[in-house]
């Protein structure tokens, strides 16, 4: 295969000037005409956002506590890497191979320094061949046409041309099954891969599939294996923490996230998770300071979401600082709030009703009929419950509690709900709701299947 690299735009990302020049020279030797530089993480993101290159050569060590791996994760998180764009990690450390062998999110390839222009060329040509092979599949996946994406993979799996990519095909199949919501099939696919070899990413996939099926004990067992065998696979710790939270083990979730967050101080997705675990664990100060760090330092445009601001407001309310909570909430523009979905609007109105009753109550009351009639995620339910208890709307509060205690999030939210009822002197009522939920469950279990 011969590819014309003169028309390709290269972006070299390296914080060391000499190394940058070296990468540029090599790129030019393979025929690259246009080679741009990015000198640091932010610069790289800016350049990629504004003018997507064809080929990214990114050094693994970017300085300032950031790594090329983190950049890659961030680019994928914000959907800034089109399928056609090649991301090649460049590293002097052989140990990066351990990362690639373990983690779920990998670059198109990595190359160890020093390397010749010819070797780079060979690697780039192979990546292009692989991208061409998967092009039709990528297109369907991007458009969320999962059934079609899976049927393409099925056909490829049995084709002669697919033989060199058989593991990649299996991996993509499992991933698409999981994204499309078929957690049972995803689990089977990941287990099928594990029969070949105990890949940490595949075992983590099993754990995520089990988590989605709410089989928490099994999910926890699987992810514990991954965490203990591959301590540098940090995302596995995030998965473990999420499972712990659903098991009601908030202290463990906070502890493991805290340890990893110290090693990855600029990973703000992980910090958000830490804040969530701290909130559930009742460590309001950690939740508040962690969210403050996120808001101040997650500088990617669009990174700070409405949910983040609501989290900050929540952390202030938890810390009994209603004035600061109100400040955060009123800083959100009305036009912005009107565009929220119902659950986010409900959280906003509830938190405002708690921090500033005269401002928030009317909005909260306006939403009441919708809140009684609609399925709402647990975080918003907790906010509604809290506001409702505060204004003495027992019906609304108890309905949220009954929902929370009868669903998959019961263990996750139990402590918070119980403490809210205690705060309003309604422990007995809480126990009664629990009893009713348990009775209903027994009746449901005893009803013969028809």
């Amino acid at each position, binding site marked *: 295969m011969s590819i014309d690299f003169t028309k390709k735009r290269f972006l070299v990302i390296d914080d*060391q000037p*000499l*190394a940058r*020049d*070296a*990468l540029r*020279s*090599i790129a*030019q*030797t393979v025929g690259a005409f246009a080679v741009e530089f990015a000198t640091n993480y932010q610069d790289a993101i800016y350049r990629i956002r504004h003018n997507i290159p064809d080929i990214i050569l990114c050094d693994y060590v970017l300085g300032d506590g950031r790594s090329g791996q983190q950049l890659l994760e961030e680019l994928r998180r914000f959907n800034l890497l089109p399928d056609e764009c090649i991301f090649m990690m460049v590293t*002097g*450390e*052989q*140990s990066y*191979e*351990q990362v*690639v*062998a*373990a983690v779920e999110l990998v670059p198109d390839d990595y190359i*160890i*320094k*020093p*390397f*010749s*222009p*010819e*070797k780079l060329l*060979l690697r780039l040509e*192979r990546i292009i061949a692989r991208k061409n092979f998967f092009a039709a599949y990528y297109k369907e996946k991007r458009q969320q046409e999962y059934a079609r994406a899976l049927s393409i993979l099925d056909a490829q799996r049995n084709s002669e041309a697919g*033989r*060199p*990519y*058989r*593991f*990649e095909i299996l991996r993509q199949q499992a991933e698409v099954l999981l994204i499309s919501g078929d957690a049972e099939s995803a689990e089977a696919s990941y287990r099928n891969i594990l029969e*070949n*070899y105990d*890949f940490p990413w595949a075992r983590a996939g099993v754990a995520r599939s089990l988590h989605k099926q709410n089989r928490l004990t099994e999910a926890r067992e699987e992810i514990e294996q991954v965490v203990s065998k591959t301590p540098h696979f940090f995302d596995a710790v995030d998965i473990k923490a999420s499972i712990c939270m659903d098991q009601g083990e908030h202290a463990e979730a906070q502890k493991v996230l805290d340890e990893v967050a110290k090693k990855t101080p600029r990973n703000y997705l992980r910090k958000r998770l830490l804040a969530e675990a701290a909130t559930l664990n009742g460590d309001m100060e950690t939740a508040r300071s962690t969210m403050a760090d996120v808001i101040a330092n997650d500088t990617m445009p669009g990174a700070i979401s409405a949910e983040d601001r609501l989290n900050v407001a929540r952390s202030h309310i938890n810390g009994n600082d209603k004035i600061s909570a109100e400040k955060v909430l009123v800083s959100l523009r009305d036009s912005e709030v009107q565009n929220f979905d119902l659950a986010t609007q409900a959280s906003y109105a509830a938190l405002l009703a708690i921090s500033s009753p005269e401002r928030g109550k009317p909005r909260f009351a306006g939403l009441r009929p919708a809140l009684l009639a609609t399925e709402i995620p647990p975080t918003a339910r907790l906010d509604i419950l809290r506001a409702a208890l505060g204004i003495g709307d027992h019906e609304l509060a108890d309905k949220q509690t009954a929902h929370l205690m009868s669903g998959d999030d019961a263990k996750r939210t139990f402590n918070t709900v119980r403490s809210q009822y205690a705060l309003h002197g309604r422990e007995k009522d809480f126990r009664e709701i629990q009893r009713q939920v348990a009775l209903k469950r027994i009746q449901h279990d005893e009803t013969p299947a028809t």
Partner: protein
Amino acid sequence: MQDLLDILASGVHDAKNQLFVAESLIASAELERQLDLGEARYAVEAAAERLSRTLTAYRLLRQGEQASICPVIVADLCAEVALAQRRHLAAKHIRLSVDCQIVDECLFDRDLVTDMLNNAVQNAARFARSEVRLSAWLDDETTVFRVIDDGPGYASLPPPFGIGLMVAERLAAIHRRRGRRGSLHLSNGGLLGGACFEVRLP
């Protein structure tokens, strides 16, 4: 001991970065002045390989090295070894031929195995008269790599183990799958009549 390993790894890392700068300068000079400095670049890469191998040997001796198993396209790996060695061997009038019969992806540590095969080809070329052959095939579920030459063969069997062979033997052994482990086999009198270096990975 972990500290010593960190210091060594960091030193090797820095040295390899410097060697990369050197290689890129040579590549630029070749492009600008239409020179062929392939042997200079080969020497730079060989120096970097030695550094990596020494670090790997140290890790293996401390039994701290783990194989990073990934799916690998074996034909691509053989092509890379050929790319790295063929010109250097040709300068010594030795032909490097590659015979890869594996189409499917196989599971092993790409970087460690590539280094092992580069080293095996270099060793074979030191004694070969005119030809070195790298071949790869599947034997049941075992991936087999073989490097043979038309030289006089190993003077004794087993031959005295230098760093290269020691690393090769241990690297093979850290490849474990389904209760089996990799192995190294050295013999004489293969298809080309000389030494035969064979690695079997489960």
